[in-house]
């Protein structure tokens, strides 16, 4: 497979401040690639470099096999872009604005604008300036998808969308991938895109912390479990679970005739299931793995190494602390 987007030591500085620092990324064609990171991590800068809105300080970026500057308008016709800060104004209606964008972009199929707008629940007859933030975001999505570009570059596409529309949007992403389109999107929360993304890169302070496929993240996933067993089994259960290295945060609480245990299981669930099998289990809840928490743990570890290269590798405790610090910032 060829790469839809490929960067090599891509660096962008604004004055002395590096917005991107030697970023190496590869996005396979026909995949959905997510870039996750807090605000100011460099996600928007990365996308602007892909579209030749910004030029690299050093390093290189190739989009659909071409240098963005050399590729020029012809290359950008094959890209659909949703900017992170979409500011649409004017008395023009959504439909007229889309007609204009279709003119300066790749050709759109007749009726494509209405079909996509219908899916997202957007009224194209209204003037752009009267649209709410969420509806402007929908209009931005329509113009990005309009000409069925080979590459979609979407900066924070889910921001401002309500949950139902988010689901519809994720369905559009899956269809785009099935149709052979490549999607490069960013978010500051992984949970919004984990269903749709094949691979994710974690970006922080202009550096790629980790690139991973969502499936691998799932392997390292953190699951919260709740377990009810008959009263009296507590000491034995505690001993059994304490023996498992990937079970942490164990706590017990007494209910009427039973004992409720709560814990966090990191990674493989199988040892835990085997360990509890011999107890009289009355109830068991395993929460959907929270990939974001997994990523934040990775974050903490890697960033610890990056920011304090002189320190020895951190213990898991250190990693936890790093993750928590970041998430409260």
């Amino acid at each position: 497979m060829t790469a839809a987007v490929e960067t090599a030591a891509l660096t962008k500085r604004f004055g002395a401040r590096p917005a991107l620092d030697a970023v190496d990324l590869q996005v396979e064609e026909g995949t959905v690639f997510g870039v996750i990171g807090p605000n100011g991590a460099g996600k928007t800068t990365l996308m602007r470099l892909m579209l030749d809105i910004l030029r690299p300080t050093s390093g290189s970026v190739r989009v659909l096999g071409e240098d963005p500057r050399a590729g020029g308008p012809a290359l950008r016709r094959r890209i659909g872009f949703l900017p992170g800060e979409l500011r649409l104004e004017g008395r023009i209606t959504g439909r007229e604005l889309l007609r204009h964008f279709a003119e300066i972009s790749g050709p759109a199929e007749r009726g494509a604008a209405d079909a996509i707008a219908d899916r997202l629940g957007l009224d194209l007859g209204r003037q752009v300036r009267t649209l709410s933030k969420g509806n402007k975001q929908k209009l931005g999505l329509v113009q990005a998808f309009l000409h069925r570009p080979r590459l979609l570059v979407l900066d924070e596409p889910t921001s401002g969308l309500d949950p139902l529309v988010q689901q519809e949007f994720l369905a559009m992403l899956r269809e785009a991938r099935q149709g052979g389109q490549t999607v490069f999107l960013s978010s500051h929360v992984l949970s919004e895109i984990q269903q749709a993304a094949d691979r994710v890169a974690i970006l922080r302070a202009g550096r790629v912390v980790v690139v991973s496929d969502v499936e691998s993240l799932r392997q390292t996933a953190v699951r919260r479990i709740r377990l009810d067993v008959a009263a009296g089994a507590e000491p034995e259960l505690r001993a059994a679970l304490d023996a498992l290295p990937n079970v942490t945060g164990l706590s017990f609480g007494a209910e009427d005739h039973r004992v409720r245990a709560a814990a966090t299981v990191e990674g493989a669930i199988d040892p835990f299931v085997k360990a509890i099998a011999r107890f009289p289990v009355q109830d068991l809840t395993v929460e959907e793995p929270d990939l974001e928490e997994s990523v934040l743990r990775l974050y903490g570890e890697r960033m610890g190494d990056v920011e304090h290269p002189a320190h020895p590798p951190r213990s898991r405790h250190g990693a936890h602390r790093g993750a928590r610090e970041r998430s409260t910032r």
Partner: protein
Amino acid sequence: MTAVPLLRRSLASGWRALLGWSLGVAAALLLYLPLFPAIGGNADMRELLDTLPPELVRTIGYDQITTGAGYTQSTFFGLMGFLLLTIAAVSWGTAAVAGDEENGALELTLAHGVSRRQVVLERSAAVAARLAWLCLLSGVLILLLNGPAGLDLREGNLAAGIAALLGVTLLTAMVAIAVGALTGRRAFALGAAAGVAVLGYALNAIGNQTEDLAWLKDWSPYAWAFREAPLVNGADWGGLALLYGLSAALLVVALVALDRRDITG
């Protein structure tokens, strides 16, 4: 794809504003010019002007007010028309690149299949077309009022005056576009364009005071347009060449500048 999409978009989104400017220009002409028989041709007015300090009269250009050409020059070309079209030129020129960039719209336009040069070219053309429309409208209205108001303007000279007015305001607009393309900053584009217009007017006014200071007019776009009194003497080809030549040079500056830098939002 159809031709000049950005030019058409600019004109389509600005037609309301253009209508407003057209009404303003027409109102200025319809208010001032019909009064010529009562003011410029009037003996009392001549006496009043004689009592005023000559420096003031020269500054506002009323020393020629008693002829139809002088009156039209002092009231419209040199004052109200110049002012209205200059304000329009500054605001359109500023919005064309810098304003669009600062409000984030340029980023989205440039993410599509258009080049930066195409943006500068088509938007400059849109500004020029709107200024040309206002000038054409002025020319037609003056022509209509020429007989009834007794201005006695010659058509060729009127055309020369209109060309000068368009030239000096186009230059102002191109300053805004070029500075916008260089810096991407609204405030800089607006300041530079308004500065050039105001400075040009001031240098001309000071240069009018004495022969010793007349050289100041060599540095005034306003003087390049009007020092040779086009409504009386016809086209001043040297002045027009300066105005349009510099405008073209600024267009080249804008084309090169926007192509070379980062677009900021």
